[in-house]
């Protein structure tokens, strides 16, 4: 066997565990669910009936799906600016050389990212409950608080989950943006200062342009993650009250695993995939223009 051929075999042998796992647990389910999205299939018994594009058409005539779509967009638009904005602000503060205890702050902000979202959701469910932290604090501050959970009202349930999500997510992005800031060469700042540039000019002409690739990455993964919001909804509200917290992934879970409509659930999953792809491409065009 030639040396090159042998090398190729070695390469394949070392990659094969990952390739096999990906093929079985990644690629196969992806392709299978794509095929299933064109069928009527309960998932429990093996009967499958080809229905063409019916599931995709049904989605856009389904009132609950449209509510879930609207709620998901509201969630994405309502959380990403705050998550990214707060993360950027804190990362800039942490980047200050005179700040003491940087490592402590970094760990503290990152802490929610290492806790399971289900655990966080359960803790916040208690905090939002009728006699939870928020109602107790409100009463102590002299406000008239209703004895009801923040998650039981159609007006407050989704904003309450969004608030929690911003708290739980921003720490992770602080670390990413902080790493991006650290990678900007110090000489550029020194040169700018010698040339008489002020703080604002340095921020807009050096920091932000050089941070753009990091910001693009942060916004892109934040968008994808936000579109896929599930465990918070599943744990805290189950999509209620009156579908006010229903989101796309939670709805596709309900459709597939509660109503046994795997075909329809798969179609919803592929609609979500298309939405995420389009939005990510738009973001790429807008944010990468000048990078």
């Amino acid at each position: 066997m030639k040396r090159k051929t042998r090398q190729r075999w070695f390469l394949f042998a070392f990659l094969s565990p990952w390739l096999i796992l990906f093929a079985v647990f990644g690629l196969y389910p992806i392709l299978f669910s794509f095929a299933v999205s064109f069928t009527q299939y309960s998932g429990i018994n093996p009967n499958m009936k080809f229905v063409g594009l019916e599931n995709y058409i049904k989605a856009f005539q389904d009132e609950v799906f449209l509510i879930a779509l609207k709620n998901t967009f509201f969630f994405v638009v309502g959380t990403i600016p705050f998550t990214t904005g707060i993360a950027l602000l804190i990362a800039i503060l942490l980047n200050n050389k005179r700040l003491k205890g940087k490592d402590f702050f970094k760990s503290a902000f990152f802490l929610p990212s290492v806790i399971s979202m289900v655990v966080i959701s359960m803790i916040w469910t208690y905090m939002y409950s009728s006699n939870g932290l928020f109602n107790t604090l409100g009463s102590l501050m002299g406000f008239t608080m209703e004895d009801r959970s923040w998650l039981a009202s159609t007006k407050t349930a989704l904003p309450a989950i969004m608030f929690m999500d911003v708290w739980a997510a921003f720490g992770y992005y602080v670390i990413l943006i902080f790493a991006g800031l650290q990678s900007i060469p110090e000489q550029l700042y020194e040169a700018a200062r010698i040339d008489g540039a002020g703080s604002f000019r340095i921020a807009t002409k050096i920091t932000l342009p050089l941070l753009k690739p990091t910001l693009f990455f942060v916004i892109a993964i934040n968008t994808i993650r936000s579109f896929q919001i599930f465990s918070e909804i599943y744990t805290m509200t189950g999509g209620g009250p009156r579908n006010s917290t229903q989101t796309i992934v939670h709805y596709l879970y309900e459709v597939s695993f509660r109503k046994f409509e795997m075909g329809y659930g798969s179609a919803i999953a592929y609609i979500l995939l298309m939405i995420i792809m389009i939005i990510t491409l738009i973001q790429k065009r807008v944010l990468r223009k000048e990078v």
Partner: protein
Amino acid sequence: MFKKVLIVFIAILMVVTVCSAKTKLLFWEFMMDDDTANKVIEDYEALNPDVEIEFVQLSWATGFDKIVTAFAAGAVPDVLELGNTWVANFANEGVLTDISNEVEKFPHIVGWNQSEYDGKHWGYPWLLGTRAMFYNMDLFIKAGLDPENPPETWDELVDAAKKIHALGDDIYGFGMGTGEPQTPWQEWFLPAVWGNDGNILSEDMKTATMDSEAVLEAARMYQELSEYSIKTKSRDLRAVFGSGKIGLWIGQADAITNFSTTYPDTNYMVCFVPKPSNDKGFHASFAGGEILTIPNASKNKEEAKKFIEYLISEEVTMNITKRVPSIFPSTSKASENPWFEDHPLEYIFFLQNALAVPAPQHPKWVDIQYKLSEAIESIVLDYTDVEETFNKYNRQIQTILDDFNN
């Protein structure tokens, strides 16, 4: 010669192995904790040395998904516990064993209607849980009501709730479940409809009847009651009742244990759920129930039936009730069990079970219940017009039924 001896020896060994092989039964359940299950299984295995039970405890958070996945993969247990509202769905998919010819063998078992779908029975009622009405005796006295005579009718209930709510803005006459998929109809709108001799589906389950007078009467009462109620999630209702700020609340029996440890100072009693009026209807409550089923793919159906016969016995079910006092035996023989003498509040729940009604066993119940909960929340949270709202949701439920029937 040696060869022959070896062949005979191997043949004997094989016969002995086959004869001594134990039947392995796989049992998936939610209700028993490890200790209870191990004791129950040990006792059964001692009585049946040829059977080995492998037990898996499912959690309410993930159990349903695990069951669905097991059916999809064809890796099902021999005995499977299902919630009563799930049975029709699985039966409709043709994955459960029809056990209709077993019903007559168990005259003491109640709640067979919880496992019935399409005129057949798909499982054995095992443990039954229902709701009864809790009322705060101190608030009753403060509001000038007689704590010895809790409300028995809808009018009495609304009147009591109004008087209690008049005690203060942060004192509520009634605790009304909202904000969750099931609570709005389970506790307590739909049982009120059943108590009023009505239902939201026709008997053949082909027509939505949310616009019927029996349903609308219950809806009007519920909307009026909501004016004096706190409307939130069931967990919150329990906490607010425990802290002495709710006069009346329809809840589950496990609250008794919870109150005795977390809110020992709350002075409360339990009574039957009210009925429409003295000369009409009955004290209906929601029947929650655990059904033991045998999946079609099980290879040990006869052994599974034998094991289920043991599981639904008074001895085993009372053992579970003592550890989980929110759910009660399906056998009527348990009414004479001395444990109830020391647990009078739990006994009221056990008696309420006889008046409990299960949700309609329709495979599309999940979709229907969401619509029903939306309708209820609309009239009690946004005070929308009862007739208009229920007509709207009646049409939506009819569409679900028509889609299913076509």
